[in-house]
């Protein structure tokens, strides 16, 4: 606002009104945008609390009561419960395994001088430039001969492989930036190499490891295309795949209440993590993209 102490002559006043109008217009778009976004998120959640007749009557209206039976039905009848557990059974081990393997490798690449370190670092980096689509068909072919197809442990290993490049890229520079004094002291005390990593360096790098794991979790929880290729048995579907089948594959018999309950279960975990750890995630996004 620039309406300082100057006297309000007429052209000044008009300019002020004009600016206010522009100001309103400028804020109109972001306000509508944010309101629509907020509505979208809330809509999915409250629709999951409506009965099927209520949804059919008006899909955008507020619920009249809390049809919690949607969740019971979704969980049992539509198998959302088993999809949810499948997602957890894949996501959590894959994220933990990646955190461990990538930290170990990044620690080595970041803290040791060896002739092969640089080429290996670039070998990992190349992975970030390969779109997953290129690997779909060969992976489909290979995974079946390696017995990694259509089973959840197989997905864990495949997802670990796909999360490795990004994780190593971020963690190598993180390990490199850690101070070395503690390591010096530990070595003097006769600590071995793995103890040095496990007891000294990895705890020091834990902020970086946690941030990387959060982004890995977001990716793996929402992963769709690889799962679509690898999983063929209905009972092994993860949430995104299960919900896709619920929404698209059976158009005539869709249990809408169950579908929205499933959507809510798919969306809420990442949203809760985002709201709780927003600062860390936001700085992770910007640092990751710009450095």
């Amino acid at each position, binding site marked *: 606002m620039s309406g300082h102490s100057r006297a309000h002559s007429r052209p000044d006043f008009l300019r002020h009104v004009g600016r206010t109008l522009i100001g309103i217009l400028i*804020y109109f*778009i*972001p306000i509508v*945008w*944010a309101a629509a*976004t907020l509505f*979208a*998120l809330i809509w*999915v959640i409250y629709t999951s609390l409506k009965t099927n007749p209520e949804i059919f009557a008006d*899909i955008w209206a507020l619920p009249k009561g809390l049809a919690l039976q949607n969740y019971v039905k979704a969980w049992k009848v539509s198998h959302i419960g088993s999809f949810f557990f499948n997602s957890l059974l894949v996501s959590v081990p894959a994220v933990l395994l990646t955190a461990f*393997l990538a930290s*170990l*490798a990044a620690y*080595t690449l970041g803290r040791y*001088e060896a002739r092969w370190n640089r080429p*290996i670092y670039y070998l*990992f980096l190349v*992975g970030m*430039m390969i*779109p997953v*689509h*290129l690997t*779909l*068909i*060969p992976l489909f*072919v*290979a995974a079946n001969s390696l017995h*990694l197809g259509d089973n959840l442990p197989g997905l864990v*290993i495949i997802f670990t*492989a796909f999360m*490795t490049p990004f994780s190593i890229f971020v963690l190598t520079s993180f390990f*490199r*930036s850690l*101070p*070395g004094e503690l*390591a010096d002291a530990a*070595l003097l005390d006769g600590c071995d*190499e*793995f103890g040095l*990593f496990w007891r000294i360096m990895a705890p020091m790098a834990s902020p970086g490891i946690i941030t990387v794991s959060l982004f890995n979790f*977001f990716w793996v929880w*929402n992963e*769709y*295309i690889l799962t*679509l*290729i690898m999983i063929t048995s209905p009972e092994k579907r993860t*949430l*995104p795949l299960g*919900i*896709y089948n619920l929404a698209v594959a059976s158009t005539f018999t869709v249990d809408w209440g169950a579908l929205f309950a499933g*959507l809510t279960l*798919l*969306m809420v975990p990442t*949203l809760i993590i*985002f709201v709780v750890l927003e600062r860390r995630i936001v700085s992770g*996004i*910007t640092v990751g*993209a*710009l*450095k």
Partner: protein
Amino acid sequence: MAPKATRTGIGERWRQATAPKRRQRLFVSLFLLPALVPYLALYIYPAIHAFYISLFDWSGFNKDMRFVGLANYERLLHDAIFLEALKHNMIAVFGGGAVMLSLALFFAILITKGARGSRFFKTVITAPFLLSGVAVAIFWKFVLDPQFGLLNGVLTAVGLDNLTQPWLGDRDLAFPAILAGVIWWWIGLFVLIIAAGIQRIPTQLWDAAKVDGATEWQTTVRITIPLIWDVLAVAAVLWIIDALRLFDIVWVMTKGGPGNSTHVLGTYLYSVGFGERSGLYQLGRGTAIGVVLFALVFVSSVVYLRLTRRKAIEY
């Protein structure tokens, strides 16, 4: 081997203490293997194998791979649906990119001005970025539904009935309608990146301009945008890579339809390769599409690495 000076220069003593010891080095190289083995076997090997598979006519399970050389690629040149899919990726890259970057720049400028509610605004518009493409696609389908969709409902409510459309049923409108969903989905990422760029500019620069009587518009055009040019370039390339890799949202919303009018390279690869169209697996032909996609993404990624590794402008 003498330890080289590193960028950080920290822990040098420790590195000198460990580096020459051969036993330790052997031990430490074992630290690399557990990450390297699955990565090479399940990511790099399939990527290399793809180039080989793309030279064959291959329907999958039975061992009837037939070498056809570059015929799969040659066929793509005359494949109208492939060319249209490529065109859609390009529309996403350029058209979508222009809309995405200008909107994100606009939002980022507003946020960094510290207007009331900026923090909340930032949180809300970033939230969709963390959602599954499947969830976003299903929601967006409800918005665009011709019968009970929110968009047509709002248009009718404000008296613009004549603008209502069967969005996803219209060959010309379907892809732009999907693209709008993608922008809604990912805009937070770009706002955050651009806002971080703006926050790096020292505030004295704006203060000085204000003292000289510059308007908001002038400071934005003459100071902010030129000083974050490098960040905008990074954001642009990031968008290009994402726009080339589109899959989930398109697949769930339309499966490339109606009448193949919304395919992108990713969805066309899937429907050709896994027989969604003909019922016959065409693994070689599908993989050839993957190789084309790889070439586009790879070149963009190299540009991205070049841009991010260059030093930021010194003020």
